[in-house]
C-alpha cells in the first residue's frame, strides 16, 4: 500500500521526522510546545520496533529496568498531538526534488520540512571473524536482549573491544551477567577521550580490583571461531590471545548519514550531515539534521544527549519562526501564536558524569587543558582510586577538570566553569577532612551559572521557580524547570539550591511532624538520640510546640515517638518492650494488642515464619490452633500464614499455644520488619547460585522487631531469575555467582517501584553490614510513614547520596549506624513470649474491663467457603442512628 500526501496544496504543511530516538522525541515535544503540532501534520518514521527510549540509561536494563520502564515516549502525548508514528518502518530513500520520503513498507510521505535524527551506529573494526556468532554491538534494547540470551545460554567469558565510556558500560553489564570479563583498549589508557593519564591510572586500578582483566595499548586483530562458527577467542596485536565466548564491539560510533548521502546532502569528511547554526542542512533549506547524525557548524559531531536536545530545540524554534513568517506573509496572523524567537546551535559543552562499574567518572569544560597558559591542580590517591584534576586559566578562572572515584563536587564545579571560584582551587579537590573544611555551596554561584546542563537550566531559573512560582520541593522544581530530569547528575546541587533559596526568601515552610511538634521526624530522632530522652511526655513538654506542651499529644506524634524510642531503646536506655511503662500509651491499637485490628473489631495473628521455611510439625500446630479457635486462615504474600477472627480475649490463649510450639511474633502489626521472602535457591533449584533460604532466615532473624518509620519488606532470590521478587522490596537481595547484589527502595502496592542496585557481588558479611547501615540510615532520616521508595526519591541526592553515606561513609556515621544495629540485635526479645508471662499485661486483653469473660457482642461470624467471615449486619444492629446525617 502506498499513500502520498499532496505537497503544499491546501492541506496542512507536513513535517517528516526520520528517526525516533531520544533527540527525535525531544524534537516532537519542542514542536508541540511551540504549537506546531496543531498547525502541521507530523509524520515520524521509526526504525526500531519500539518508540523512543532512554538510551543513556540502557545499561540499567541489566539491573532490572524493563524496556517499558526505559521508554521516554508518552503515547498519550503522541495521540493527543495527532502525531503519526510508524514503528519498525525506516525511511529508505529521500527524493528531495519531489520532497518525498519512501519507507521500507512502501509508505510514501510528502514533506514541507524534513528532519533527520537518525543517530549513530556502532563502529565495528574490519577484523576477520567480526560477524561470527557470539559477536555483538551495544546500542539498542534489541542488542541487549541478544547479549543476555547468548550469555546465559552459552558463555562464561566475555570480552569488550573498546575501553571508552560505552565499552566500560558494556563490560559492567557482562560482569553483571556473571561472565569473566576482558576489556581491550587500543589507547594506552581507559576512557582516553574523557580522562588523562592520571585519571586513567586511577580508573584502571579500581576496575582491576573488581576482577576485570584490562588489556590497554593493544588492538584486536582477529576474532577466532570454533568449528561451529561461534566465537572462541580473540587475537590481539601484541601477539597475545584471549579466550572468550562472546565479544561486544564498542569501538566508537559513526553518524548514520547514509540516507543523507544517498539523496545528495553534504556530509563531512569523517561523516555527519553538515548543518548550519540553525541545524538546517547546508545543502537544502527544507532539510534539518539533529542529534548524533549531525555535523554541527563548529565542525564536530556530538555523541552526547544534551547537545542533541539543544539541536532539537534549535530546529523546532527555527521551523516555528519560518512558519510564523509564512503565515504572516499569507496574511493569516491567527494561524500561529507565539513569537518567532531566534535560536542557534554553535557547539556545546562535553561535560559528563557517569557511574561506570560503580566508579564515579566526570569530566567537564576544558578537561585536557587545551587552552594556552593554563595550569593544573591535581589530587591523586591511588589507594582509594581517587583522581581529581582542575584546569585553571591564567586569571584564576576554572576552565575544566576531571574527577575519578569521587565526583561529588561535579555539579558545583561544572557550574563554576568560566568564572573564578570564591575558594582556592586546591581546596576544591582535597577530600573532605583533609586541610581546612570548605563549604562551596551553590549559593556562591552567579545566576547565569548552568546548573543542569542536560536541559540548560540556570541557577536563576531555579531560583525563579522557588521565588516566583512558590515551588517548595525538589520534585516541583524539577517539573517546572525540567532541571534534573536528564542524566540526574545535577539533582544534588538542585536540592541544595532549593533549600537555600527557601531559607533566603524566608518562606516559612512548616515541616513539623504534627500540631504538637514543629520538628520533622528526623529532627526528633536526633533529639532523642543525642539527649537520650526516653519519655514521650518529657519530649513533648520540652521540645513540643508552645501550645502543645503539657498536653496529651496526638495520634500522629505518639506512635512516631514510640517508634523512634523503640528503635533506639537499647542505645538510649529506654524500655524496649512496646507494652512496657509509658510506651504502652503511645502504641497504635495494633501494637497495643500485638495483633492486627480488622473491620469488625476482631484481630488477626501472624506468627513469624523466617524466610518462609516451616516444618510440617509447625504447620500442623498452626492448623490445630486455627481449627480449635475457629479462625479463618489465609496464606499471605509474605510467605506466611495469617489467622483471622480472634477476639481480644483469645489472643493470649492462642499465643500461649504458638509460643509453646516455638513460634514468635511476626510483627505483622508493627511498623517494623515484616518478612524476608525467599525462593528455594541453590539447595534445590537447578539454577540457584547461592543458598537464598539460609540468607533470608539470617536476615529475618537479624532485623525482626526493628521498629521503623514504616513497614519493611525484604526478599532473597537464589539467582537472577528472581523468583522471590526481591526488586519490589525495601531491601532485596539477588544471588550472583560471586555473592549477593543488594537492591533498595523497591515497592509493590499502589505505587510500585523497582528497587535500585546499591552494591554488587557482596560477601555475606559485607551484605549484612551494608543492610545494617542502610536500614539505620533510613530509620534515622525518613519521615513518618515514608517507605524506603518515597524516601529515596525525596532525599536530596537520592540513591547517589545514600550510596555515598552507607557505602563510602561520606558522613562518617557508618560506625554509629552499625553499632545501633548491633545493639538492636542484641536486645531483641519476643514480645509475645514476654506478654504471656506478665499477668498485669495480660489483664489488658479483655473486651470489657468490668466483664472480662464476656465477649464483644458486635464481633460475630458467619460461614463462607468452609471458613468464617465477619458478620457485618451485627455491626449495624444496635448502633444508634446518627444525629443529623445518615451513617456513612
Amino acid at each position, binding site marked *: 500500500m502506498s499513500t502520498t500526501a499532496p505537497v503544499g496544496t491546501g492541506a496542512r504543511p507536513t513535517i517528516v521526522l526520520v528517526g525516533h530516538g531520544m533527540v527525535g522525541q525531544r524534537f516532537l515535544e519542542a514542536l508541540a510546545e511551540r504549537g506546531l503540532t496543531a498547525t502541521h501534520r507530523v509524520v515520524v518514521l521509526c526504525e526500531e520496533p519500539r518508540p523512543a527510549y532512554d538510551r543513556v540509561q540502557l545499561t540499567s536494563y541489566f539491573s532490572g529496568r524493563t524496556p517499558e520502564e526505559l521508554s521516554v515516549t508518552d503515547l498519550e502525548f503522541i495521540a493527543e498531538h495527532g502525531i503519526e508514528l510508524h514503528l519498525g518502518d525506516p525511511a529508505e530513500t529521500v527524493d528531495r526534488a519531489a520532497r518525498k520520503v519512501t519507507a521500507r513498507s512502501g509508505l510514501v510521505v510528502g514533506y514541507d520540512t524534513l528532519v533527520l535524527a537518525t543517530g549513530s551506529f556502532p563502529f565495528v573494526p574490519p577484523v576477520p571473524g567480526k560477524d561470527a556468532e557470539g559477536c555483538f554491538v551495544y546500542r539498542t534494547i534489541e542488542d541487549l536482549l541478544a547479549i543476555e540470551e547468548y550469555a546465559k545460554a552459552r558463555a562464561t567469558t566475555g570480552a569488550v573491544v573498546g575501553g571508552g565510556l560505552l565499552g566500560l558500560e558494556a563490560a559492567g553489564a557482562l560482569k553483571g551477567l556473571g561472565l569473566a570479563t576482558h576489556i581491550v583498549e587500543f589507547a594506552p589508557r581507559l576512557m582516553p577521550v574523557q580522562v588523562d593519564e592520571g585519571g586513567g591510572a586511577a580508573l584502571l586500578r579500581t576496575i582491576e580490583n573488581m576482577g576485570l582483566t584490562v588489556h590497554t595499548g593493544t588492538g584486536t586483530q582477529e576474532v577466532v571461531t570454533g568449528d561451529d562458527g561461534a566465537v572462541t577467542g580473540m587475537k590481539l596485536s601484541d601477539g597475545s590471545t584471549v579466550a572468550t565466548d562472546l565479544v561486544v564491539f564498542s569501538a566508537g560510533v559513526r553518524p548514520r548519514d547514509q540516507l543523507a548521502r544517498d539523496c545528495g546532502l553534504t556530509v563531512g569528511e569523517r561523516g555527519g550531515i553538515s548543518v548550519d547554526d540553525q541545524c538546517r542542512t547546508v545543502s537544502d533549506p527544507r532539510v534539518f539534521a539533529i542529534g548524533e547524525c549531525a555535523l554541527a557548524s563548529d565542525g564536530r559531531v556530538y555523541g552526547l544527549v544534551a547537545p542533541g536536545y539543544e539541536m532539537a530545540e534549535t530546529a523546532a524554534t527555527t521551523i516555528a519562526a519560518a512558519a510564523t513568517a509564512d503565515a504572516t506573509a499569507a496574511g493569516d496572523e491567527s494561524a500561529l501564536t507565539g513569537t518567532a524567537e531566534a535560536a542557534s546551535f554553535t557547539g556545546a559543552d562535553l561535560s559528563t558524569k557517569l557511574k561506570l562499574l560503580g566508579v564515579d567518572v566526570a569530566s567537564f569544560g576544558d578537561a585536557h587543558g587545551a587552552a594556552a597558559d593554563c595550569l593544573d591542580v591535581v589530587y591523586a590517591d591511588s589507594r582509594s582510586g581517587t583522581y581529581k584534576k582542575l584546569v585553571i586559566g591564567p586569571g584564576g578562572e576554572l576552565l575544566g577538570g576531571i574527577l575519578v572515584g569521587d565526583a561529588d563536587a561535579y555539579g558545583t564545579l561544572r557550574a563554576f566553569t568560566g568564572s573564578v571560584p570564591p575558594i582556592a582551587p586546591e581546596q576544591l579537590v582535597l577530600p573532605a577532612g583533609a586541610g581546612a573544611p570548605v563549604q562551596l555551596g551553590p549559593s556562591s554561584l552567579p545566576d547565569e551559572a548552568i546548573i543542569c546542563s542536560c536541559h540548560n537550566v540556570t541557577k536563576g531559573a531555579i531560583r525563579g521557580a522557588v521565588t516566583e512560582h512558590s515551588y517548595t520541593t525538589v520534585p516541583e522544581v524539577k517539573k517546572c524547570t525540567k532541571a534534573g530530569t536528564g542524566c540526574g547528575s545535577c539533582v544534588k546541587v538542585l536540592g541544595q539550591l532549593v533549600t537555600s533559596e527557601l531559607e533566603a526568601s524566608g518562606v516559612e515552610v512548616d515541616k513539623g511532624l504534627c500540631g504538637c511538634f514543629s520538628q520533622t521526624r528526623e529532627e526528633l530522632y536526633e533529639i532523642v538520640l543525642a539527649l537520650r530522652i526516653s519519655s514521650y511526655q518529657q519530649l513533648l513538654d520540652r521540645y513540643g510546640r508552645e*501550645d502543645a506542651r503539657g498536653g496529651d499529644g496526638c*495520634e500522629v506524634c505518639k506512635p512516631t515517638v514510640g517508634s523512634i524510642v523503640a528503635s533506639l531503646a537499647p542505645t538510649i536506655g529506654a524500655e524496649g518492650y512496646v507494652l512496657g511503662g509509658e510506651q*504502652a500509651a503511645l502504641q497504635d*491499637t495494633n501494637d*497495643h494488642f500485638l495483633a492486627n485490628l480488622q473491620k*469488625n473489631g476482631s484481630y488477626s495473628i501472624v506468627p513469624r515464619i523466617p524466610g518462609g521455611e516451616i516444618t510440617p510439625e509447625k504447620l500442623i500446630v498452626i492448623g490445630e490452633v486455627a481449627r480449635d479457635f475457629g479462625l479463618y486462615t489465609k496464606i499471605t504474600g509474605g510467605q506466611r500464614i495469617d489467622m483471622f477472627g480472634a477476639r481480644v480475649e483469645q489472643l493470649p490463649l492462642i499465643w500461649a499455644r504458638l509460643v509453646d510450639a516455638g513460634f514468635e511474633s511476626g510483627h505483622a502489626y508493627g511498623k517494623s520488619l515484616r518478612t524476608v521472602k525467599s525462593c528455594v535457591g541453590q539447595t534445590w533449584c537447578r539454577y540457584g547460585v547461592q543458598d537464598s533460604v539460609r540468607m533470608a532466615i539470617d536476615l529475618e532473624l537479624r532485623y525482626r522487631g526493628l521498629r521503623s518509620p514504616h513497614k519493611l519488606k525484604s526478599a532473597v532470590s537464589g539467582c537472577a531469575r528472581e523468583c522471590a521478587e526481591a526488586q519490589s522490596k525495601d531491601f532485596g537481595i539477588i544471588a550472583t555467582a560471586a555473592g549477593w547484589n543488594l537492591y533498595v527502595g523497591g515497592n509493590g502496592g499502589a505505587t510500585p517501584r523497582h528497587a535500585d542496585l546499591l552494591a554488587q557481588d557482596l560477601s555475606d558479611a559485607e551484605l549484612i553490614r551494608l543492610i545494617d547501615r542502610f536500614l539505620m540510615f533510613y530509620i534515622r532520616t525518613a519521615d513518618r510513614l515514608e517507605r524506603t521508595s518515597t524516601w529515596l526519591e525525596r532525599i536530596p541526592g537520592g540513591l547517589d547520596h545514600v550510596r555515598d553515606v552507607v557505602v563510602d561513609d561520606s558522613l562518617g556515621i557508618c560506625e554509629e549506624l552499625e553499632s545501633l544495629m548491633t545493639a538492636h540485635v542484641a536486645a531483641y526479645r519476643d514480645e509475645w513470649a514476654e506478654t504471656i508471662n506478665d499477668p498485669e499485661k495480660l489483664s489488658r486483653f479483655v473486651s470489657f474491663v*468490668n466483664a472480662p469473660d464476656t465477649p464483644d457482642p*458486635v464481633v460475630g461470624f458467619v460461614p463462607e467457603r468452609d471458613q468464617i467471615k465477619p458478620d457485618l449486619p451485627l455491626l*449495624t444492629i444496635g448502633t*444508634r442512628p446518627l444525629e443529623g446525617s445518615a451513617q456513612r
Partner: protein
Amino acid sequence: MTLAPETTTLTVQLRLAGPDDNWFAVCDLSVLIPGRGVAALLPDGRQVALFLDRTGRMYAIDNRDPFSGAAVLSRGLTGSHQGRPFVASPLLKQRFDLASGACLDDDAVRVTTYEVRAH
C-alpha cells in the same frame, strides 16, 4: 507513730439514666493507664469507652465507632487539640472530642458522652 492515711481504693463510676445517684461501678481507678482507654459493658448491653488523661481527668463516650459500627473507640489513641481532649478511632482515624462527643472530622457526627467519676 502517726496514723497511716486511709487506703481505700477509688472506683471508677459511670452515671446511668434514671435517678440522680444512679452511679454504675466499672473498675478500680488503678487499672486505667493515662493516655489509653478501656471498654465497659453497661447493664443494658451498651458499651462505653473510658479514658484517663495525663492530668488525671477521666472521660467516657460510647464505644461504638459510628463510621464502622465496630466497638473499638476505647482502643484508639488519645490526644489534645487546642486544649481539648480527643480520641482517634483505630479503624479509620476520625477524631472524637472526649468531652462533647463531637466528631472533629465530620460536623454531622457525634457520639454519646457519659458522666464519670472516681469515688
